[in-house]
């Protein structure tokens, strides 16, 4: 589902952020991406979502070779890759409902179908009753769950999360990770960047370790 072959990413100002990364994830696989700050975790996720292009190497996601994907196909690729961020990236002046609906609205889906799917997604993250609230009225954990609902509402086959629990206490983090596990059960491929090593260890999933832009470890879960 996600395939990296000798991928390099160089920033002109900062040098190499990723060096010779190769790995493969199967459909429905869930994996963690760990490493110290500045190791290149966010960069790797941004390459998968085509927020950036690699300097060298091939990336194939969901059967698409991202190196040759023309610019006007990028939006369609992004619809297949749900992305979750540490800072949620919600629209502060829109309701929970409108935030979650955004990925559907941009595809031109009809009102009724949007409503149905948004409520299904909100139900999954336990926020069905807060659809009229605006993000600032929610707790950090709730805001993150809105972000998750927005990422999954279009039912993408790939879900990426960049330190989704960075600002949350351990109990809430655990809840969020259990939510991710449920997506994995239904066949979503998940890659989650985190530095919460204790939690990673307790969950026994495949774990990639990055160090200074290199893939230093790839431990199988069981």
């Amino acid at each position: 589902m996600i395939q990296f072959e000798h991928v390099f990413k160089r920033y002109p100002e900062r040098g190499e952020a990723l060096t010779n990364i190769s790995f493969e994830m199967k459909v429905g696989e869930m994996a963690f991406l760990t490493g110290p700050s500045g190791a290149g975790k966010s960069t790797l996720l941004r390459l998968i979502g085509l927020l950036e292009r690699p300097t060298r190497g091939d990336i194939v996601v969901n059967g698409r070779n991202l190196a040759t994907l023309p610019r006007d196909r990028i939006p369609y690729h992004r619809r297949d890759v749900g992305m979750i961020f540490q800072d949620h990236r919600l629209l502060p002046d829109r309701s929970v409902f409108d935030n979650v609906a955004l990925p559907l609205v941009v595809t031109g889906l009809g009102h009724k179908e949007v409503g149905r799917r948004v409520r299904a997604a909100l139900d999954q993250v336990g926020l069905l009753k807060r659809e009229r609230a605006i993000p600032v009225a929610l707790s950090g954990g709730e805001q993150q769950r809105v972000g998750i609902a927005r990422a999954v509402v279009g039912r993408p086959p790939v879900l990426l999360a960049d330190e989704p629990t960075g600002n949350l206490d351990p109990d809430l983090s655990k809840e969020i990770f259990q939510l991710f596990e449920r997506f994995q059960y239904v066949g979503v491929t998940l890659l989650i960047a985190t530095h919460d090593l204790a939690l990673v260890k307790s969950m026994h999933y495949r774990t990639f370790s990055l160090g200074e832009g290199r893939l230093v470890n790839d431990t199988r879960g069981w």
Partner: protein
Amino acid sequence: MLKPHSRRRRLPKLAEQFQIWLGQHVQNALATLGRLFDTPVPTGMTVAVIGISLAFPAALYVVADNLRTMAGNWDQTAAISLFLRHDVADEAATPLADQLRKWPEIARVDIISRDSALNEFRALGGFEEALEQLKNNPLPVVLAIYPQAAFALPAQLETLQNKLLRLQEADFARMDTVWLQRFQAILDLIQTGVVLLGGLLGMGVLLIVGNTIRLEILNRRIEIEIMELVGATSAFIRRPFLYAGAWYGLLGGLTAWLLVTLALILLQGSVSRLASLYRSEFPLAGLGVSETLIVLSGSIALGLIGSWIAVERHLHGTEPN
């Protein structure tokens, strides 16, 4: 739990795609208009500036149009007044007029007999005493000569005048066209003014709309970024800004039309009073249907182009950096 879609998403059928496309457009256009009315003060100001800018050339056009109509009415006055020699009597004028009517250059000849000229003179008032002193009528017979439309150009009129003066009965002739020529020149000048002013103020409208849309894009940076993140096409992101530009244009055009029409209503009173002094009526012509359509489609086009420029310069689409 919702299942993810299969490996590659099914592309919708063409008819389905068209329906989605049309639905998005209608919804987008209305939503954009709603957004404009959500902030009535800045929207109103932008629309007013556009309206006033467009009202200037439109008003000048209306002025030129009315002057042309006015000149059209005056065209019917005789182009050449041929004064006959004093010894030519009223009776002799009739066969001469018949003869002249056969000339190909001439459309119509009216005889102003000595008596009728005198009566007209009396009717003007103020000359009664002077006229009483005269033993006989000092006025000559005058032939009012109206040329054929095809011979009404200044050079041809001069040829005609010379030809008329060679007549035995002719004393002198007066052409009534010099002022008409000047008037035509003024009309041409105003028309050039309409084009120049329209061009300049049209550029102004482009800049106003462009700048308004630019600010709107900057205001919505975060929203645009997030929409790109969740898979909005660049066309989808651009659309509301282009619609906003078109709406600004349309509302500005309607404002311009309203301003010109109001100005005409206010002016009609004084124009009617002026016309009545000349014992005539002069209804002012406003912007007709086709002119109104030109103003509106022009203003929409300006709004669209202005927003297009802003969108091209400030939205770079979903290209990863």
